[in-house]
């Protein structure tokens, strides 16, 4: 809620500033992205190099972004949905195909990522931007005997000081992983078992939070939170608070990728293609990674990125840990089983 309003405000302020400052005759590229996801200097570099103006608008959930587009919002040239959402948008005929000839930097895209993880393996309608994980962040000084496991949510001594995301796929996914199932299962019984486990967890958490957990753990309101890797690392960095630690739970975790897509109704496809290509310039990808602590699947950028960042196993997940990660995939009509399980979780006492 807060995030939505702030995004709207920030979006309009940015749009306003760009509208006043720039030259009116320059071509305009409208970007629709998550907040705090791109190094600010990258915009300046792109504007300079291509003689255009970039206008940024932000969203805080795939579903809200999709709802806005479906309600008739248009005029965007590049959008950053997560892979499962990009898949749905493509199924709905909302995307322009990716022209590889116009984007020479696509050769830098990590081939093993495309082969093993990607939904759109051929980059037919999307190009990956950043990938991250969903794990647990905790306050070292406040949690005794912490074990990197989802079972921390069963600890009654931490009751009221923990949060889970308000996201049914992520939370039920964590429970599915704890039980040893796939987080894309469509087996009704497995999902029901996961819901029962989340109901136990729910008794120990303060609330389901998508945004507030960051401020909550920074202000010592919460000791254990489920969160996105880069978001937590940005909190640690901004507060210079080494007491907060991000871990990948041993039972498994979700990994996700946000893609860049060009909507079919874009007015400026050429500039949009140049923008996507620019994001896979190794130097630009490096700037972005060092800003947001996520990983751009770009082999050439791996070579130039800060060594310290590259050594961090929660950012550049080593191969032996990658097997424990699983990507949330679109599951079509079976989603209804998750919706019902999530309703049961929310309604349980």
């Amino acid at each position, binding site marked *: *809620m807060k995030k939505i309003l702030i995004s709207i405000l920030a979006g309009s302020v940015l749009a306003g500033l760009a509208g006043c400052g720039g030259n009116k005759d320059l071509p305009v590229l409208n970007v629709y992205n998550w907040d705090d996801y791109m190094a600010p200097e990258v915009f300046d570099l792109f504007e300079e190099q291509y003689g255009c103006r970039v206008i940024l608008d932000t969203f805080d959930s795939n579903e809200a972004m999709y*709802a806005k587009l*479906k309600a008739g919002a248009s005029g965007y040239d590049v959008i950053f949905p997560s892979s499962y959402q990009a898949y749905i948008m493509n199924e709905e005929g909302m995307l322009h195909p990716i022209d590889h000839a116009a984007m020479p930097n696509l050769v830098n895209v990590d081939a093993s990522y495309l082969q093993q993880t990607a939904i759109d393996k051929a980059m037919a309608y999307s190009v990956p931007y950043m990938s991250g994980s969903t794990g647990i962040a905790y306050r070292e000084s406040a949690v005794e005997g912490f074990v990197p496991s989802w079972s921390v949510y069963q600890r009654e001594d931490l009751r009221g000081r923990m949060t889970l995301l308000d996201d049914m796929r992520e939370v039920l996914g964590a429970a599915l992983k704890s039980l040893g199932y796939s987080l894309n299962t469509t087996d009704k019984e497995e999902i029901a078992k996961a819901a029962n486990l989340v109901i136990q967890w729910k008794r120990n958490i303060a609330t389901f939070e998508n945004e507030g957990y960051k401020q909550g753990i920074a202000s010592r309101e919460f000791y254990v939170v489920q969160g996105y890797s880069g978001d937590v690392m940005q909190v640690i960095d901004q507060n210079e608070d080494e007491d907060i630690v991000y871990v990948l739970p041993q039972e498994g975790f979700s990994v996700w990728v946000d893609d860049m897509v060009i909507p079919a109704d874009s007015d400026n496809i050429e500039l949009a293609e140049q923008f996507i290509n620019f994001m896979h310039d190794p130097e630009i990808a490096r700037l972005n990674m060092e800003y947001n602590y996520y990983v751009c699947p770009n082999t050439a950028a791996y070579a130039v990125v800060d060594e310290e960042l590259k050594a961090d196993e929660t950012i550049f997940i080593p191969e032996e840990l990658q097997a424990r990660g699983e990507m949330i995939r679109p599951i079509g009509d079976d989603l209804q089983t998750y919706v019902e399980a999530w309703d049961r979780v929310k309604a349980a006492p």
Partner: protein
Amino acid sequence: MKKSRGQWILSVPSLAWLLALFLIPCLLVFAVSFRPSGPYGGIGEGWTLETWRSLTNPSYPAIIWRTLWLSAATTVLCIAFGLPVAYAMARMSPAWRNRMLLLIILPFWTNFLIRIFAWRTLLHPDGLIKQVLVQLGLADPNAQLLYNSWAILLVLVYSYLPFSILPLYAAAEKFDFNLLDAARDLGASRLRAFFSVFVPGVSAGLLTTFLIVFIPVLGSYAIPDIVGGPSSEMIGNKIAQRVFNDRNLPHASALSAVLALIVLTPLLAGLVLRRWRGNATGGGRAA
């Protein structure tokens, strides 16, 4: 009861406005609730009663009940706190009345959301209020002040109190306080005079308060979202979940329709009461 042609013409713009931007969209929302949902969040073809049938799912009665009791409790508390304030203000000198009015409106200078977030800081587990309560032995050191239905009730009362004081004060200002002296002369205690003479005297204000507190609280979304916990959803939160997360518009529409029906009930009750009161006191003057 008869209206002149001039009156009709004057009301055409507002009627057209309500028809186009309120009644028709409401009917569309009702209609969508009878359509099936598409796999990717669209609205499917044909008609179905499935959505309405699924409202019997046991999770809904709990949410509807929570929404109702929170709204009723907020209204009762707002009236209970608002009445003495309105009484006191009506007896003040005009200069003090204006100062008090200014103080009551003062919170509106700060954005509604910022005021709700301020409560999160106030009720922080290491915050001042918690520490004072623990020192006084009123709260357990591990107690949670936030993220439960009581926190929602507290912030709802805080947010809506000005909306109850203003109409109550407007009614109390017109009240003839000589009537209280008369009641006392006739042997009524202070309390008895307050409840038997003053309260009925401001009943128009009570009715307005009921309508402008109870109905908006029914549709609350931001307050339970921000200070509520894992078990304190209200209908507004469920509708938002259906629209933004589940992308199930028929389901969201059905819930909105339920909310609209719950809102209409007190509104109609209020109208009937007002008419009845008008007939009783106004000597048959048409309302």
